[in-house]
């Protein structure tokens, strides 16, 4: 395959940045998208040019580190992570546009790398549970109905990649935040901080500068882990009931 790559290059956060065009020749259909970029970077390095910076880590679709906005969609044309995207999803001679996640809360660090620590701060605000120290508790000590455990596990699938923010026309982090609020609100272990969690995580989400939700459903459609927007409805319930009944003024 021969491809034309239109890639966003930006030296640092202060740089204005712009697109650079590269030609990727001899691309195999069996390559992953990131391997295709690895080959491009090898060629750039050999020529003495600065390789394209992009985030990646496990390359198994479980860590949430890879990003990339490919041809107008986060993680490209398939509903998966960029590392699990293969070149067979593209056709020979195609021009592929690669951009970083775009959001005020995700500033560009360099090229395609964005700073997603805003998500970490949302988690720090309330995405945790109180646990007793001491011996390891017995399995099944706390009874949890299977259906509830399944819902919590579905929400816990979120890997925090930020595709929901990237896909949303408002750069809203509601799907991410709601998945984390839901996961803990559903389980008995999460009840201690339940109200404070909903209030603090929503407040932090707003403070980071993410947009509001318009219920377009774009986040759900693009989420590589299939997180449902029913979680956003649950977060709204959690938040409204929390502010109405908590002791926090």
């Amino acid at each position, binding site marked *: 395959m021969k491809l034309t790559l239109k890639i966003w290059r930006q030296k640092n956060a202060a740089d204005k940045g712009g697109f650079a065009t590269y030609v990727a020749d001899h691309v195999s259909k069996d390559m992953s998208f990131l391997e295709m970029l690895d080959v491009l970077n090898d060629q750039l390095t050999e020529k003495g040019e600065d390789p394209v910076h992009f985030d990646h880590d496990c390359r198994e679709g479980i860590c949430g580190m890879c990003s990339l906005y490919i041809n107008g969609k986060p993680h490209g044309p398939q509903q998966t992570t960029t590392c699990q995207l293969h070149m067979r999803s593209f056709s020979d001679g195609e021009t592929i546009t690669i951009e970083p996640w775009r959001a005020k809360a995700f500033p560009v660090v360099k090229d395609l790398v964005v700073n997603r620590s805003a998500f970490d701060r949302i988690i720090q605000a309330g995405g945790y549970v109180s646990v007793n120290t001491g011996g390891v508790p017995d399995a099944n000590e706390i009874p949890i109905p299977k259906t509830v455990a399944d819902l919590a596990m579905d929400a816990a699938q979120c890997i925090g990649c930020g595709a929901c923010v990237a*896909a949303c026309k*408002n*750069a809203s982090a509601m799907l991410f935040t709601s998945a984390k609020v839901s996961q803990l609100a559903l389980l008995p272990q999460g009840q201690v901080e339940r109200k404070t969690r909903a209030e603090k995580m929503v407040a932090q989400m707003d403070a980071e500068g993410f947009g509001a939700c318009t*219920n377009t459903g774009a986040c759900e459609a693009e989420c590589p882990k299939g997180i449902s927007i029913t979680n956003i409805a649950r977060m709204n319930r959690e938040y409204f009931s929390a502010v109405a009944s908590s002791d926090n003024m």
Partner: protein
Amino acid sequence: MTWVTKTLNSTLGRKLIMALTGLFLILFLTGHVSGNLLLFKGDGGQAFNMYAKFMTTNPAVKLLSYLTYISVIGHIVYSIFLTQHNKSARPVSYSTSNGSSNSAWSSRNMGVLGTIILIFLVVHLQGFWAKMHWGEIPMVTYEGEEYKNLYLIVSEAFKQVWLVALYVVSMIFLGFHLSHGFASAFQTLGLNHKKYSPAIKAVGMVYCILVPALFAAMPLYIHFTSYTK
């Protein structure tokens, strides 16, 4: 009152106001379309004029009308707040964006649709509502009681082709606005459940077609029956 203002200034609080005012306006539209069906009665406007008098004098209706004004203003003001906030959340936009692959057009253009509906609303209120409240309207007498002949104003207005066209086109925009807004309001209120959400979506789809279609039928009916008289 800090917790109240804090909540209403949060993204979720602002969305709550959009949902509540939106749902109230849906209730208003339901009442408005039902009452105005009297235009189809073909009695020279007697039932419609009597209904119009009731709607402008009954104290309970007055209270509802104030709630409607507040809802319209609240819906507009908060949509401006939210749109500004949402625009600022993405200062640098994408060069290539494929929104149609993951969401409906109407859901991504609620602000545009709402602005068009607002322009229509100004024309509509100026033409009928303002005239009914403060304008000079010829009187008509039924069974010894005097009524403002609003029907005459309406039937004269809809003899103009451009106004009929404006109404019909505006109702199409209203339909698209409602096609997203109806179900979206319930989602914002946190009412998303596998038992009820399919029904809410179905009712929303019927509503967003039926109500604008009935509204659009009114100027069309009056315009085309005016040729037969």
